[in-house]
């Protein structure tokens, strides 16, 4: 049971993130929501590679024993790097949006579309 806990946390994080993106009206809060979804997905990847009682997959002066799988950790790292780039782009776009509209309310910036 205890080893299912990370998966429950993954589901909770993704749902919380989606809730924030859908129902929060502030752009910054929406970005935080996206970051939370990303954390959920990263946690899921990390959890997949974990085995009970395993050590970190480092050979240097390793104490021996089973190691957790390094591939998901590499995937997570890539995903984090991409996340940083996306976050930076979204924040800089929000700066520009604020300059043009003087608001961060998502209902006010989208108006006037035909």
């Amino acid at each position, binding site marked *: 049971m205890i080893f299912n806990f990370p998966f429950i946390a993954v589901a909770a994080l993704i749902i919380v993130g989606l809730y924030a993106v859908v129902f929060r009206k502030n752009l910054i809060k929406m970005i935080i929501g996206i970051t939370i979804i990303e954390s959920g997905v990263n946690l*899921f990847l990390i959890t997949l590679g974990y085995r009970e009682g395993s050590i970190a997959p480092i050979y240097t002066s390793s104490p021996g024993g089973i190691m957790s799988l390094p591939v998901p950790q590499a995937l997570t790292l890539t995903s984090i790097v*991409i996340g940083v780039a996306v976050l930076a782009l979204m924040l800089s*776009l929000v700066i520009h949006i604020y300059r043009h509209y003087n608001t961060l309310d998502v209902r006010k910036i989208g108006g006037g579309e*035909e």
Partner: protein
Amino acid sequence: MNALDFIIANSPIFAVAIPLLGAFLTPIFGRINDKLRNIFAITIMIITTSIVFILAYDVITNGIRTYIFGAQDLTLPVVRILFEVDAMSSFMAIISVVLALVALIYSWAFMKENTGLDKYYTLLLLMTAGMLGMELTGDMFNFFVFLEITSISSAALVAFWINKGKSVEAGFKYIVISTIGALFVLFSVALFYGQYNALNMAIIAHSIQFSFLDKIALVLLIGALAMKAGIVPLHMWLPDAYSKAPSSITLILVGVTQASLYGLLRVCFTIYGKMITLSSISIGWILVLFGIVTILLGVIMAIAQSDLKRLIAFAAVGEIGYMILGIGTGLVTMSPDISAAGLTALKGGIFHIMNDALDVGLMFLVAGAIFYATRETSLDRLGGLARNMKYTTVFFIIGLLAVSGLPPMNGFASKLLIYESTYQLNPILAIIAILSSILLLAIFVKVLHSAFLGPALPRFNEVKEVPKSMLFAMAIIAGMIIIFGIFPDIVVNNIVEPAANALVDNAGYISKIMSLAGGA
């Protein structure tokens, strides 16, 4: 080993690595001279285009190609990244590079007055590399990475005119939608990895069980990639992004959308290829339904628009519906082997991917030309432009005939394949498709009337024909439209049919990797 063999042997990686290399060299050339930088970017793209054509020729004559990164041969379990290129991948890659090349030529004059063009060219080349990567890769995680590269660079380019609030807003919407879609793709990749200990598409497809988790992964992948591909009702970002981006970027965005569509096909036909033929699974019908809704909504919304680029964007949504309709019809008839009508539908759908890229692309280029000449996109304020912009008008009429599927343009050939085969599935589908095609004609006749025809307006007296590079870019696409329209058989037999067969033949796709790895 002579040079040509060397290029052929390494062509899958060259297709991605050369634009990437060019992207990072562009700022250095930009420091020296603006013109040099433009020439450099176009040279890089011409090299990439020729490499993709060499690759496509090789794939179509010699079968599926693989390329392993960092090692000569493969060992089980497969952790290496590898590219797997079949006829479908190379077909999509051809479309992407042609669009990118045309967009680069078009940008020469179109973006001339803007600042920060070093970044523009860098991002454009990055975007091309990302698109090609999505289409050539054989690895699910790699697909996600290239999806994100494409999303980030294209969102930055959508918001390139940061002095316009609407552009920035459209870019923000695009990046939010793309990121959420890509994260769900990553989640599905993790679901696959957890079950099968593999990231390679062929190995996942080999060992797929269609368990409960696989169903969740399928739902998430279809949802996320359909959103990226602009299928109704997940298309709403598309008109915003298409209409607010610079026209040269919109042309490549069409390619990006289709690369996502390619991902959807890869998922449905290859990864779930063994399971999709079970009668209990109705993915084909879901796609057909998506297609019909997409066509209807696209054309109805396009009629009501008064902004030129937004109108074309909704017409593009309608065109996406035709592809989905054709491909979905092909999927419905697979039980487990595809029927003749289904194969025709699939060919029509795949051929329409190329035709949509050309037709809608030409329309966006014309809209960009109008914007360049008059600084105006609203149809209410345009009029009488045919007097001053003769060549643009001719290109617009060619695009009009093609996009609304009038013979003898290329749009008709692919739509005919779709009509005839969907009629055999259900006549109502074909009738809706034909009626929507008529509506498309009505939509663009409206544009022709209100922008090009009519009396000369005094405020457009000073309007001049657009520069030569823009005309040349439009002429390339218009020429391709006419050639593909008059000789559809060449394209269908040489490129489209191998692509359709490659898509259906998922056993061949799997066994290629399996024999390489020496297992199973």
